[in-house]
């Protein structure tokens, strides 16, 4: 697609006049400057004419041209060259390849455009930048690579859902995730599983197949996706074949992962000391009986120590439970691809096998993926093609972060409990403080398998050089099977005494048809016009079923066919459709004044009968100042471009039937069928509307060696789709309404520099973005999420709202809180109280970073290359919801973080940890005690690679041999004391549930070695 459009773009450039002159035949060969290989399919054009040809399979060409003519050689992935013919009859050309030449063309949705002429804001990440990153899904590989794009892994579990925010959160209740479109097909990207820990359907994509990822950020770029564009649009384009000799690429990489960080917990001596003290303090305070320490508590210790009193008294049992939660985590990945073709037919085929173990016990991820991309020129005018991807992903999953069975909750177990009960020589089970997650390791399985088919067929017909029509029919079929079995040993967790089996299937079938005309023409040599006009239809049909059974004869039987008691079963479905018409026109005057208008009419089944269709227009202008004659005297400035855009986009990502008044028939009772009112009708329900203004400046200095972009944007979202809390006395909890507005404002800054050129190449690429989110109006509503997150007027979404911890009373060790009563004059009562109920809740933090960014450096010398990417964010806070159990100064028998040893012990002690009091709730209320700064800077990726010299590779008949070593998440700089500052507890993650930690696993630090062979 890139190539066709580039050709038509060139056609447009040269459309008008033919120059008549004395002509002669010019021949030559085009080769790659990189490796000297011949380049077939290179476009050779006589400048200013319609005359052109392509190089043949050996890179040769032949064309008639006058001596005063200029030849343009252009090819996707290479920098175009212009060469004056002069008197030569042979012109051999070497084209230099460069990742940046790719970025000269951006994918715009139903088309492509030259970056130079773009008036919107699109961030492009090439597939080469993220290829072979040792992560499971491409969003992770995008971290730190695009301005304005914040990617957060919820925790370190493989295959887990991700959060992506493009220019902030634009919605409170509807989705804040962007629309993902792969080769024109809107993808199923929302979790379809049954667990509250979301599973990521995008992990089915082998991102080594990706040619480029284009992220549409401003209204001008995104409005062509209308009602689904408010959160930005991520366009994924897969690789296409190149005509010429078939090139094979084989690669293998292997490595292993470790947690980025561990936390420090009490050992047995410390545990016994702290809890004995906590009990004694309870006795002294009079709320525990005198005998509680030597009686109840010591017998409890002995019980936890598997009956071994000496074990806890002398510390002969001292278990590091945290270490038990992790496992060895090797990974291996094999990729093979072939691409080639002739001038009529081109193909790209690939296959991938990935097998990765997670750092947490029982966590694994395997992907098998195959792709065929094929296009064929049936005639000069008609091109047909097909892109098909088949994938199977097998994900060994874990319980959500809130489950006793999730591996990291193991750290709550006291160190006085042995891993193996010496009385039985089996895993410590029923007598432990909580369920032992190791029982799930040994006696359960939880496997999600997805079968994915993403593909389309297309036909493109060129009516004339200025007009073509393209029709695509695509589908994304997602089948997800979850298969779980929990043996009788896990009954303490499942409640099923003799085994629990669960099996579910989800099938989401998503059809898309895109049909559009593309026009392009140049008038009078200086008016360039191109336009796109078309329609698209999408229908998604989902069906789900599941069955649960209990009572299995033994753990050898794990399928529900062996269950004696089928306890639950269900089937359900959900559908939606979109019907849309879109148009876009770009106008360029003398290559320096740019204008673009676009619009989309979107109809959706999701919206109320009164508001089924919406119109989303956008317009943008650009001025390439360096094209002005008055700029000619400034040679250091190679590009200066000012652009601005304004437009309207929508957000339709709500439930499929939210506008209806609904009854549900699931209210049966003891086998008698029943129904219940479920939802209050809202026929006026409509899209959220976001107007966005973007002003941008692009510049290039020193022939483009230093280039950059600065953008300022304001996104105003109104008619928020809001799940408004209604009085519960109505019998309902919430109603979805269009109420309120919010805004995101921000700066984006992108800089690219070729610091050195020549034999030693050093490039730097930097992106920084600062987004400020503010909820302007929620009609007085307060919408809560997470532990203490809320959406409230005047504050950023998800602000932490709770009482404010004031430290410890030095006199008595009580936890203190600021009262924070607001006085009539607007000031706050800063006196303290030891009763959390007497303290007023205030905003204590913000989960949204003030600044996000990434900086990558690439060093190349001969075949040696070193790439290093730092990524980070600052200005955000993290709330550790597990703090009230983990760092609770001995409030309950959970093992504690070592910092709890700093507890208050005697009058005069100055500390931040209150007196240890068993059951005393001394400081355990949700409060700013468990809030911390979440700033971090991370060495996200470092890759050292070596391309063997062709002198050696040729000897073994290979075009290319590259060996590399890559590290992911190698270093993390943060003051956050939890496991990892990149966190958002999976079961709470949402629009408002942001920045929460709850026994959430750290990210993986991964080191791999790999080899690529090209032949």
């Amino acid at each position, binding site marked *: 697609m890139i190539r066709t459009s580039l050709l038509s773009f060139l056609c447009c450039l040269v459309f008008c006049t033919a120059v008549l002159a004395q002509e002669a035949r010019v021949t030559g060969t085009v080769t790659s400057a990189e490796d000297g290989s011949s380049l077939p399919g290179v476009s050779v054009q006589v400048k200013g004419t319609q005359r052109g040809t392509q190089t043949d399979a050996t890179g040769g060409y032949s064309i008639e041209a006058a001596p005063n003519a200029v030849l343009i050689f252009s090819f996707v992935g290479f920098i175009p060259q212009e060469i004056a013919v002069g008197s030569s009859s042979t012109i051999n050309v070497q084209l230099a390849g460069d990742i940046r030449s790719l970025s000269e063309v951006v994918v715009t949705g139903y088309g492509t455009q030259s970056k130079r002429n773009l008036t919107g804001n699109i961030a492009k990440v090439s597939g080469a930048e993220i290829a072979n990153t040792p992560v499971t899904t491409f969003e992770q590989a995008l971290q730190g690579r695009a301005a304005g794009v914040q990617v957060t892994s919820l925790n370190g579990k493989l295959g887990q859902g991700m959060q992506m925010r493009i220019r902030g959160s634009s919605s409170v209740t509807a989705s804040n995730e962007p629309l993902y479109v792969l080769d024109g097909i809107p993808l199923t990207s929302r979790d379809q599983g049954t667990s509250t820990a979301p599973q990521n359907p995008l992990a089915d994509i082998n991102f080594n197949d990706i040619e480029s990822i284009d992220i549409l950020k401003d209204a001008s770029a995104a409005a062509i996706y209308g009602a689904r564009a408010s959160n930005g649009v991520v366009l994924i384009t897969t690789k296409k074949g190149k005509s010429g000799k078939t090139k094979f690429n084989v690669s293998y990489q292997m490595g292993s992962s470790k947690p980025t960080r561990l936390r420090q917990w009490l050992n047995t001596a410390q545990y016994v000391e702290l809890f004995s003290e906590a009990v004694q303090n309870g006795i002294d305070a009079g709320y525990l009986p005198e005998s509680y320490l030597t009686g109840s508590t010591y017998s409890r210790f002995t*019980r936890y120590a598997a009956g071994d009193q000496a074990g806890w008294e002398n510390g002969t049992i001292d278990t590091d439970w945290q270490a038990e939660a992790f496992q060895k985590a090797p990974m291996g990945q094999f990729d093979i691809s072939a691409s080639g073709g002739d001038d009529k037919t081109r193909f790209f085929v690939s296959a991938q096998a990935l097998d990765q173990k997670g750092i947490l016990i029982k966590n694994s991820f395997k992907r098998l993926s195959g792709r065929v991309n094929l296009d064929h020129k049936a005639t000069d*005018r008609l091109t047909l093609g097909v892109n098909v991807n088949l994938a199977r992903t097998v994900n060994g999953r874990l319980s959500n972060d809130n489950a006793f069975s999730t591996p990291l909750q193991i750290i709550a177990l006291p160190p006085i409990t042995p891993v193996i009960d010496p009385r039985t020589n089996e895993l410590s089970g*029923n*007598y432990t403080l909580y369920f032992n997650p190791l029982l799930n390791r040994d006696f359960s399985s939880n496997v999600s398998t997805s079968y994915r088919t993403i593909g389309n067929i297309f036909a493109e017909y060129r*009516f*004339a050089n200025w007009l073509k*029509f393209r029709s695509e029919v695509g589908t994304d079929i997602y089948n997800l099977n979850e298969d779980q079995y929990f043996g009788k040993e896990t*009954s*303490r967790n499942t*409640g*099923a*005494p003799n085994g629990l089996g669960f099996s579910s299937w989800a099938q989401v079938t998503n059809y898309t048809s895109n*049909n559009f005309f593309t026009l392009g023409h140049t008038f009078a040599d200086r008016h360039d016009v191109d336009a796109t006009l078309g*329609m698209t*239809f999408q229908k998604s049909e989902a069906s789900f079923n599941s069955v649960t059974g*209990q*009572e299995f004869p033994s753990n050898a039987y794990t399928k529900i066919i062996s269950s004696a*008691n*089928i306890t639950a079963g269900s089937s*359900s*479905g*959900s*559908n939606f*459709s979109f*019907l849309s018409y879109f148009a876009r026109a770009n106008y360029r005057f003398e290559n320096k004044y740019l204008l673009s208008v676009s619009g989309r009419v979107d*109809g959706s*089944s999701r919206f109320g009968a009164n508001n089924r269709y919406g119109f989303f227009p956008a317009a943008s202008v650009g001025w390439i100042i360096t094209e002005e004659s008055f700029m000619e005297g400034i040679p250091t400035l190679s590009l200066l471009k000012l652009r601005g855009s304004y437009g309207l986009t929508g957000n339709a990502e709500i439930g*499929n*039937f939210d506008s*209806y*008044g*609904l*009854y*549900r028939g699931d*209210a*049966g*009772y*003891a086998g008698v*069928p*029943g*129904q*219940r*009112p*479920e*939802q*209050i009708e809202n026929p006026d329900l409509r899209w959220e509307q976001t107007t966005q203004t973007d002003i941008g400046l692009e510049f290039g200095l020193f022939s483009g060696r230093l280039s950059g972009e600065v953008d300022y944007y304001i996104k105003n979202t109104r008619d928020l789709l809001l799940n408004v*809390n209604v*009085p*519960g*006395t*109505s*019998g*309902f*909890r919430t*109603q979805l309404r269009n109420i309120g507005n919010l805004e995101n404002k921000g700066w984006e800054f992108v800089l690219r520099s070729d610091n050195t050129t020549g034999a030693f190449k050093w490039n730097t690429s930097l992106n920084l973005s600062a987004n400020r989110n503010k909820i302007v109006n929620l009609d007085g509503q307060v919408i809560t999420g997470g532990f203490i997150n809320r959406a409230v007027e005047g504050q950023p979404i998800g602000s932490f709202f709770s009482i404010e911890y004031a430290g410890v009373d030095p006199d008595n060790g009580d936890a203190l809180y600021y009262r924070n009563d607001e006085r009539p004059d607007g000031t706050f009562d800063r006196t303290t109280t030891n009763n*959390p*109920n007497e303290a007023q809740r205030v905003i204590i933090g913000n989960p949204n970073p003030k600044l996000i960014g990434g900086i990558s450096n690439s060093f190349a010398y001969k075949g040696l290359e070193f790439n290093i990417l730092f990524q980070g964010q600052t200005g955000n806070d993290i709330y550790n919801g597990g703090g*009230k159990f983990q760092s609770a100064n001995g409030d309950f028998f959970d093992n504690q973080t070592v910092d709890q040893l700093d507890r208050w012990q005697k009058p005069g002690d100055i500390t931040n940890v209150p007196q240890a009091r068993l*059951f005393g*709730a001394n400081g355990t209320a949700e409060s700013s005690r468990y809030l911390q700064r979440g700033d971090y800077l991370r060495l996200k990726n470092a890759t050292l690679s070596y391309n063997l010299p062709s002198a050696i590779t040729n000897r073994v008949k290979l075009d290319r041999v590259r060996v590399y070593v890559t590290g992911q998440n190698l270093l993390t700089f943060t003051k956050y004391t939890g496991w990892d500052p990149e966190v958002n507890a999976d079961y709470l993650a949402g629009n408002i549930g942001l920045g929460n930690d709850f026994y959430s696993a750290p990210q993986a630090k991964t080191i791999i070695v790999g080899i690529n062979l090209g032949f």
Partner: protein
Amino acid sequence: MAYLFKNILPYALTGSLLLLGGCASQLDVKPVNTIDAGAAVATSGDVAALLVGAYDALGDLDVYGGNIQRDADLLGDNGEIFFDGTFVAPDEIFRKSMLVNNGQAEVTWLDSYRAINIANNVLANLDVVTEGDRARVEGEAKFIRGTLYFELVRNYAKAWTDGTPSANPGVPLVLEPTVEITEQAKVSRNSVSEVYAQVIKDLTEAETKLPESNGFFATKYAAAGMLSRVYMMQQKYPEAANAATRVIDSKKYSLVNTAEVFDLRVNQNGFNTAEDIFAIQLTSQDGLNALNTFYGAPEYGGRGDILIEDAHLALYENGDRRAELFYVAENGNTYTSKWINQYGNIKILRLAEMYLTRAEANFRNDSSIGASPASDINLIRARAGLSAIPATSLTIGAIMKERHLELAFEGHLIHDIKRTKGTVGGLAFDSPKLVYPIPLRETDANANLTQNPGY
């Protein structure tokens, strides 16, 4: 070129247009799992299904599925049980230190009003009910509504015995179904006495309209039994004794052996015994037994959170068969057997309570409505294998102890303390700490609701 324009372009364009034309109707996508509210209640059968929906909501785990009963025993405990669990909300209730955002106070409120709204929908659609069924349907809906307002007012407001009921705020009375959410949805609290009046009105009408037998659904005697509780909370002893007598004299129910009162099987679908007047029905496929969840040991499907302390076990006399309703679990803790079957029914009203209520009411009233206090108490004692107490030496203490042991862990404790003006854990019966907060979420959503003292 001309060929193409003549032959291909028209097809391409027509094709696209056809596609467009065919698509517009594709936007009418109907819900798959649910139906349009406007069409949901059209026939007598639809109302019947809605009524079943009201029972389903009544049996929700945060309502009569067990959490209301659990919390009455946690809040009223004086050291006979120990809450060993991690759930914050019941832990706060057990420690009598509820915070204003207590999660249980929130969901019990929300789910109770959800059930009330369904009952209100039934009552608003009585006109489509077949005439022969109409009185019964009305009676059942009013039983559910009256019962829930009773639970709400005695948990979220000051006790009837605390101050002036007509001056104390109760809970909002919503008696019409919600069809839209307007400003009027921001209701205020009615007084305690207004709520009690509505409860008595609903339950009295229910008693009148309900049949004597109605499968496992509410009957005339379920309504009378619930009324006896309401009157006891108001210290209206003759009314309470009369209501209990109506149940006892119906001869529909009989005391069963101690070992059969509760379902001591495990993992089997529940059933009602001859003693049960009203119980929430459970099967392995429908409903959750929250009492099993918290009182049951892990090997019986529970969390094993509520341990029975020696202080309770020591209360039983030698030979009391009820002392056998405990077991030591694999983890070494002692639990009650009453809720050992995770699919067992949850008993709301059983005949033994009627005898205990009548005995206490008559004793306090110095009357013998239906029977003498001693004969009622000794029925219960005899069933437990204990000797009779002579009428002359019967004390209120003995009656209350009998009630305490017979109805332990069934959700009576805090309410018995409040109506008899007792104490718990050093707190007087009228301590604000023994009243739930109006859920914070609710006062946030509805500024017309006043908060209880102490929050």
